[in-house]
């Protein structure tokens, strides 16, 4: 059992969860719960939304207002929730396929609107639940059930995508840094008052990705992420060649004076009522 304040955020009757032994997604859920517990947000005021896939099972385990939506659509649902009740704290979890393939359009537009939602992209480079098909973040050359001869599609850099689309908080960590995940999540949740926060948490799927790519044990993946993570400050001093295959972690965007969408909508209401 986790510490008491974290345990209180769990629907313990559904534990142990559905994810494979050693799954990186469990590390992320744990970090999200520690962040919410540390911020002491009443759980009645917390909304956890998700789409479809392994990541999407998370809300079922969290004792809050939880919203398991359709594939790729979680941010669009969450946009409605947020507009209807701007006081809620919304953590929207999605996978790499969920968030950047089928839900890619909702993702970039949520960034553009700068709506107060914390979007956690649990990037395990694969469609895990359906059996290991290639996703927009499956590295070139990696094997997947739909890329049996190696993936040829270039990948998305989710953080750059978010930054380019206008997210006002963008950060990345890997599950090999659980405490960093937690710290970034706390900042990203607090950022909701200022706008859309994207946290890419690089996870792994040893079952579907690892099996086909010589990283079949959880620890192989954990070590891979640990060994290839480079802090942003250090990465800034490295060449593109040196950064090849590395995962840059840290905070990329944090606009302190950003104006959140529902607050801007309040101005629309004021203008409409004055007219």
């Amino acid at each position, binding site marked *: 059992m986790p510490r008491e304040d974290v345990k209180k955020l769990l629907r313990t009757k*559904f534990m142990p969860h559905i994810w494979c032994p050693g799954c990186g997604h469990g590390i992320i859920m744990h970090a999200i719960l520690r962040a919410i517990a540390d911020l002491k947000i009443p*759980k*009645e*005021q917390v*909304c956890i*939304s998700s789409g479809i896939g392994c990541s999407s099972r998370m*809300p*079922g385990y969290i*004792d*809050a*207002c*939880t*919203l*398991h*939506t*359709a594939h790729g*659509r979680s941010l*669009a*649902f*969450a*946009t*409605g*929730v*947020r*507009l*209807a*009740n701007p*006081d*809620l704290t919304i953590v929207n979890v999605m996978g790499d396929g969920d968030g950047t393939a089928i839900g890619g*359009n*909702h993702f*970039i*537009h949520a960034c553009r609107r700068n709506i107060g939602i914390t979007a956690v992209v649990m990037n395990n480079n694969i469609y895990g639940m359906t059996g290991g098909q290639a996703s927009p973040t499956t590295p070139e050359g990696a094997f997947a059930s739909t890329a049996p001869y190696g993936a040829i599609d270039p990948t998305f850099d989710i953080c750059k995508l978010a930054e380019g689309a206008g997210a006002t908080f963008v950060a990345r960590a890997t599950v090999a840094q659980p405490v960093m995940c937690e710290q970034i999540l706390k900042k990203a949740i607090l950022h909701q008052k200022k706008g859309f926060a994207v946290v890419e948490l690089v996870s792994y799927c040893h079952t579907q990705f690892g099996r086909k790519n010589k990283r079949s044990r959880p620890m192989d993946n954990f070590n891979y992420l640990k060994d290839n993570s480079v802090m942003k400050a250090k990465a800034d001093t490295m060449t593109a060649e040196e950064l090849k295959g590395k995962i840059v972690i840290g905070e990329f965007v944090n606009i302190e004076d950003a104006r959140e969408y529902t607050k801007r*909508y309040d101005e*629309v*209401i004021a*203008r*409409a*009522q004055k*007219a």
Partner: protein
Amino acid sequence: MAQVEFWQGNKALAMGAVAAGCRFFGGYPITPSTEIMETMAEELPRLGGKFVQMEDEIGGIAAAIGASIAGLKSMTGSSGPGISLKQELLGYAYIAEIPLVVANVMRGGPSTGLPTKVSQADVMQAKWGTHGDHATIAYAPSSIQECYEITVRAFNMAERFRQPVLVLSDEIIGHMREKIVIPEPGTFEVINRKKPTVCPDDFVPYKADDDDVPPMAAFGDGYRWHVTGLTSNDFGFPTNEANEIDKKATRIIRKVERFREEIVEFKEESMEDAEIVIVSYGSVSRSSLRAIRELRKQNVKVGHFRPISLWPFPEKQIAEISKRVKHIIVPELNAGQMVNEVERAVAGRCEVHRKNLLNGELYKPDEIMAFIKEVA
């Protein structure tokens, strides 16, 4: 003094929604329904409501469902391709039991089809567009006044039964302008969803009352609950138990079916002594009525039956009519959709004549008169 306006159907539909208490609209521009969202963009913020133009049609319905879960009466609207795109999430609202009104201003299809021309070819899509079993409620207005009033009714049904309700308007009704007398607030019924009365720890989110409808909490109300598109049990959590699956799957249909007679709405004209009956709805019914009124002057015993609720279909009423008339003529702007329901209800008791127009135009009264004369 009653407020009298000269409005377009789409505007009346949106204003009816606002009068019903709608405070959220999520949508995406598409002809011929765009004026609904434009009206919402103007009206909702005046009332403290929220309007959001989403990045696509799916986003529009998703945001509306999200807002409904967070407690606002919500709506989306579209036409043709947009309605097709919304089908998956329409199903989500059926299974998760989220009140929602979806306006469909019908245009010609399939696909991009005829963006600016009228059609009634979405009648069966309204019933079966999303996958899986569910009970459909869909109303088709035929005047500007009715656009307003039927949308109020659609919201009332959505809130009462906790599910999506469709308003099946069409391009003619949506873009036509005519007189409307705005009903005074308080002179019509407005239904709000049932809220739970138990304390949050005792809340069983999908445990239905005697009417088969569970009370609904809003996110942020102090209740914690799980919403999912998976088939769930009374506690709102996914289930693979056959008895729990059956309970949910049958209840979401039964909750509507058992109140069928309260949902069904129709209008009759000149039916007392009719030997020939035109069954038509939406814009076509306007041509039908003109034809009938003309022929009545010539002592042709023809009447009109107009289903306002296309779903549930007023089959009992049609069955009764079939016992006393010789001919039922069903003119539709499609290849024959509602006529199948008519034939089913008639069950061979009288002749049913299919009349179908697929050229993007509206039936003219003369054409309907000719149909009547063929059998008179």
